[in-house]
């Protein structure tokens, strides 16, 4: 069977549909023939508009503009193309040389982006990207005028990554808006965007972003290579890319990070990561990804560091509970009752008394029911979704216990697990798989099953790499310096270095100790710029 699959895979790899480019698709001098060329290429779709007019310079010249309605900006087309060419060109007194297109380009059209092109396929590509193409009689070339419609939904806070404090902007569906949002966060001119087109039919524009000097050149090269290797006909979302370029394609753990927030993306870029923007989606992929990223919420950096550390530990605890608690509960109640303190054991035994199913089945079934309710609630319109949740959670939970089908502790455990699983949203998918399989293992083999499952998971996680970086770093392999943003969240002025596994090229964020807040502010006499210089000054004073 595996060989069969392998053969299939091999087939899939070799099957390459080669798009047949036209042998010679350059434009001709006759405008009608050119228009016919466009028509042949684009078909008779009603959204493709061909507007003919006459350009009156010294003599009358037949002209036409072609655009795709809806993709272009009406106002720009009117202001920058039609009005100057049809109305203002008459008043033109300057001599027109033989290069008519060059003259128009330089003197008549006040648009921001202009380009000459004489081959059909780039013209069509530009047209479908929202640009307008200007054709002139007697010219074997055309002008591409940038009239892209940048109207888009306003940048608003993404629902998936909500913060209490901090910026409220989020990425939108438009690539240019997103890159602009990032530019606004990072003023460094060395922030570089590289664009390419992926997807033979969707022709999605994908942009790689990184900060030169911080990002590891090899990682950037690897990202470029992996993106270039993609040969598919559609990229509709960031996840399409993610699945194509992930290091471990079968692993349930995400080895490519993603975010919808410009501040998160900026922070990751400045740690030395690479971001990949995909047009038409607000989700931005970032790589290399670490397991620990799921626990680093933007709010951690917007609140006091002690509180942030505390919350981060709560998050770790919640994650542990979310995948371990059902398994522990099953193991304890079925195999190792001696570990439960006696009073608790008695009350639990009383609750479990009379329920018909073994504990494993109860936990797994209730867990599955919860997931079903969640799924139903997510997909429905919001008001109905809430109703479903209330009906599901309250009514079913309550009724099932009072009917004596399921023990009350099981419902408590499942509910607690459900809540804690939402604390770390990005690892939630893996949480479900881990939770259920560990619970089943615990039902079969007790605590030994849990340990075995954990060992297996640990082995898998320890073997994962994301673009050359060990997935579990800096915890495994241990890097004590980098625990500053993992075990605790040290004050920002004390984050002297970037995470070493990612930003080792240019590790220094700020000079050691220099940017610490002046501790002598209370003394007030003179405010030294830093502790270091204060020490130096004192030493100098002593010398005197």
């Amino acid at each position, binding site marked *: *069977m*595996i*060989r069969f699959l*392998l053969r299939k895979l091999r087939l899939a790899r070799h099957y390459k549909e080669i798009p047949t480019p036209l042998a010679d698709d350059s434009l001709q001098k006759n405008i009608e023939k050119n228009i016919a060329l466009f028509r042949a290429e684009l078909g008779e779709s009603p959204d493709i508009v061909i507007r003919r007019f006459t350009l009156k310079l010294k003599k009358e010249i037949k002209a036409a503009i072609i655009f795709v309605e809806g993709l272009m900006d009406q106002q720009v087309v009117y202001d920058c193309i039609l009005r100057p060419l049809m109305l203002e060109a008459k008043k033109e007194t300057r001599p027109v040389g033989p290069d008519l297109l060059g003259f128009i380009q330089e003197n008549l059209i006040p648009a921001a982006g202009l380009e000459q092109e004489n081959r059909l396929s780039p013209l069509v590509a530009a047209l479908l990207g929202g640009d307008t193409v200007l054709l002139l009689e007697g010219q074997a070339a055309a002008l591409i005028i940038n009239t892209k419609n940048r109207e888009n939904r306003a940048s608003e806070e993404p629902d998936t990554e909500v913060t209490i404090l901090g910026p409220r902007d989020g990425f939108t569906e438009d690539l240019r808006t997103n890159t602009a949002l990032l530019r606004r966060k990072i003023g460094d001119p060395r922030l570089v965007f590289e664009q390419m087109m992926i997807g033979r039919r969707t022709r999605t524009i994908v942009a790689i972003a990184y900060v030169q000097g911080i990002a590891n050149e090899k990682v950037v090269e690897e990202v470029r290579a992996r993106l270039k290797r993609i040969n598919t006909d559609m990229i509709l979302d960031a996840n399409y890319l993610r699945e194509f370029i992930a290091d471990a394609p079968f692993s349930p753990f995400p080895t490519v990070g993603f975010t919808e927030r410009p501040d998160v993306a900026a922070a990751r870029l400045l740690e030395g990561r690479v971001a990949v923007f995909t047009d038409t989606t607000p989700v931005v992929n970032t790589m290399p990804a670490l397991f620990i990223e799921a626990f680093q919420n933007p709010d951690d950096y917007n609140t006091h560091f002690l509180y942030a550390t505390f919350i981060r530990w709560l998050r770790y605890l919640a994650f542990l509970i979310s995948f371990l608690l059902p398994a522990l509960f099953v193991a304890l109640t079925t195999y190792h009752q001696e570990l439960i303190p006696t009073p608790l054991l008695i009350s639990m035994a009383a609750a479990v008394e009379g329920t018909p199913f073994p504990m494993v089945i109860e936990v797994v079934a209730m867990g599955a029911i919860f997931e079903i309710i969640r799924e139903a609630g997510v997909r429905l319109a919001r008001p109905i979704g809430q109703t479903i949740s209330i009906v599901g959670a309250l009514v079913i939970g309550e009724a099932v216990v009072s009917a004596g089908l399921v023990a009350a502790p099981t419902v408590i455990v499942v509910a607690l697990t459900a809540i804690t699983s939402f604390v770390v949203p990005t690892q939630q998918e893996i949480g479900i798989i881990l939770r259920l399989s560990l619970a089943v293992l615990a039902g079969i083999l007790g605590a030994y099953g849990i340990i075995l499952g954990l060992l297996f998971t640990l082995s898998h996680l320890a073997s994962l790499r994301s673009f050359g970086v060990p997935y579990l770093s800096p915890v495994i392999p241990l890097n004590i310096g980098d625990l500053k943003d993992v075990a605790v969240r040290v004050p920002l002025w004390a984050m002297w270095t970037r995470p070493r596994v990612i930003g080792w090229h240019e590790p220094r964020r700020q000079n050691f100790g220099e940017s610490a807040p002046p501790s002598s502010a209370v003394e007030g006499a003179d405010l030294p710029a830093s502790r270091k210089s204060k020490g130096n000054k004192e030493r100098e004073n002593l010398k005197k």
Partner: protein
Amino acid sequence: MIFLVLLGFACIVAIELPVLIKAQYRRELVVFTILTGAAFILSILLALGVKLPYIELVLIETFTKLGLTIK
């Protein structure tokens, strides 16, 4: 029991063999076959309930005899 053993070995062969054949590792294939064959025969014997000697008992006996002869 024997069925389980067969199933297990079928799984192992199905996992390992295609890789070996595809990469054309000849020597690896030979060593793999010998080891798997040995493991297979021993497992079948165990599954059939044949009493095999216990390694530690053998070792203890051998060394006791050795000690006696030296004495």
